[in-house]
């Protein structure tokens, strides 16, 4: 398992901070763009620049800069990783939402169950990745499934805690008036619960997807019992480039693809969702 640990250390200690600072830095530049078109344009320019670098169009004698054969597979790998991320998100949501409603509504249940949840959540799942992969493979599942489950572990707690907070924040008088009006079942979900927790769902999903990325990268390329388990994905690409081929071009392109993708999703998904949550769904009026 030593090789897994090396990969984890490389990720936690170097690549992840690198990606985060790049996202942060580029975000600062993007903030100064007034229009959404402006920021997409800027990102596009940056993407072209990176692509040019990757294709070795910045003439250089170094053999490290020869384009790797994997370069053309980057978009597809990104897509697969994204699909895995979304599947994991859906899986996490399916079990955290009902639990959040159960725990959040009843003070007595909450007091008893929360400490247990907090203990379980503090266990770092990444340490158990190789073990989990082995178990799933032995039970007959494939690596894709294992990868998705691993990502879920990195997402679910952020989602759960935010959802519980959201459920708790629903004002008691709204519950009472709902009871008085006879608001029940699906209509109660549609008109009261879901809109009320929308802001928490946004913040929870935001942090969950962030945590998911982290788990994703580590879940796509796993050493267990001297066997390598990997799937087609951007995290696997980065790990392979770092650990096996040492191809600088590949590393740069993988990282850049991740950074760009995170920025685009921020602009197109999280920003508007957050704005909407503030405008229409804020509980204080």
């Amino acid at each position, binding site marked *: 398992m030593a090789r897994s640990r090396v990969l984890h250390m490389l990720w936690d200690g170097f690549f992840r901070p690198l990606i985060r600072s790049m996202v942060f830095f580029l975000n600062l530049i993007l903030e100064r763009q007034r229009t959404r078109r402006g920021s997409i344009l800027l990102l596009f320019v940056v993407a072209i620049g990176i692509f040019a670098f990757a294709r070795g169009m910045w003439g250089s004698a170094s053999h490290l800069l020869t384009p790797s054969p994997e370069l053309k597979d980057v978009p597809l790998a990104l897509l697969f990783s994204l699909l895995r991320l979304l599947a994991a998100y859906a899986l996490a949501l399916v079990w955290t939402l009902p639990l959040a409603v159960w725990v959040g509504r009843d003070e007595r249940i909450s007091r008893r169950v929360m400490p247990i949840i907090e203990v379980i959540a503090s266990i770092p799942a990444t340490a158990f990745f190789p073990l989990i992969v082995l178990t799933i493979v032995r039970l007959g599942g494939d690596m894709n499934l294992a990868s998705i489950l691993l990502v879920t572990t990195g997402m679910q707690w952020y989602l759960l805690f935010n959802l519980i907070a959201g459920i708790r924040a629903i*004002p008691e008088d709204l519950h*009472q008036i709902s009871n008085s009006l006879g*608001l029940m079942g699906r209509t109660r979900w549609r008109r009261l619960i879901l809109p009320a927790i929308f802001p928490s769902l946004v913040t929870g999903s935001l942090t969950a997807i962030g945590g998911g990325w982290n788990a994703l990268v580590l879940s796509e390329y796993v050493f267990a019992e001297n066997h390598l388990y990997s799937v087609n994905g951007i995290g696997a690409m980065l790990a392979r480039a770092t650990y096996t081929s040492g191809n600088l071009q590949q590393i740069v392109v993988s990282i850049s693809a991740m950074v760009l993708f995170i920025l685009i999703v921020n602009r197109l998904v999280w920003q508007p969702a957050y704005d909407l949550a503030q405008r229409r769904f*804020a509980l204080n009026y």
Partner: protein
Amino acid sequence: MTSQIQDTSSSASVVPESPVPLLELREITKSFPNRIHILGPISLVVQEGEFVVVIGPSGAGKSTLLRTITGLTDVTSGEVLYRGQRISGVNPRTALVFQSFALFPWLTVMENVALGLEARGLDKPTRYSRARRYIDMVGLDGYERAYPRELSGGMKQRVGLARALTVEPELLCMDEPFSGLDALTASNLREQLLDIWLSKQIVTNTIILVTHSVEEAVLLGDRILLMAAAPGTIVGDYPITLDRPRKRKSLQFEEKLDELYSLIV
């Protein structure tokens, strides 16, 4: 909570002796799980057509009383009878108005007002046209598309009132509805409520209103119930026979007010 109405009245006699009261509380008490005895024992009869105002100091349990009356809260002992039948769970023939307005911030005025009908499964055109009637009645005409955050306190409470009236309850219960408003807005809204009540344009035939203002009680009520605290019980029951419209500056009003103040102290 689904509501169940169990028939505990005795077998029908051919000639009814006296009209069955709209609401009857028989020796009800309310204690919370931690054994704190909040309310009762209270026995009370309210006839159809009354405008009852409940006054008392804070903590007297007035709000809890309203919630047991509407079935929002269960009683610990005793019975709540609506038209002679025992109620358990929320009584669909009642509606509530809260001091805090309790509006849904993400719904427009129209959607808030029509909410009770949506809960009952009516389709959109039907709900909206019925809601529109009550929106007009409370003076919110023109505000259908506004969100609660755009409204002043008085407007917000009008939404609360319209929402309650739209389900066409027989019994309307109001918990300190004007306490969160400034004097001018409250006075404006009180006038509107009285207009609606006296014009008899609504299905509602009985109102129970809770307030801490004795003046408001004399302005609005046909009957004043005085509550004392710890545990909450009814210690006074006074009819008000002043003619409407009641003017604060009139002699009879001030006399009645003084009379009540002396009884309370």
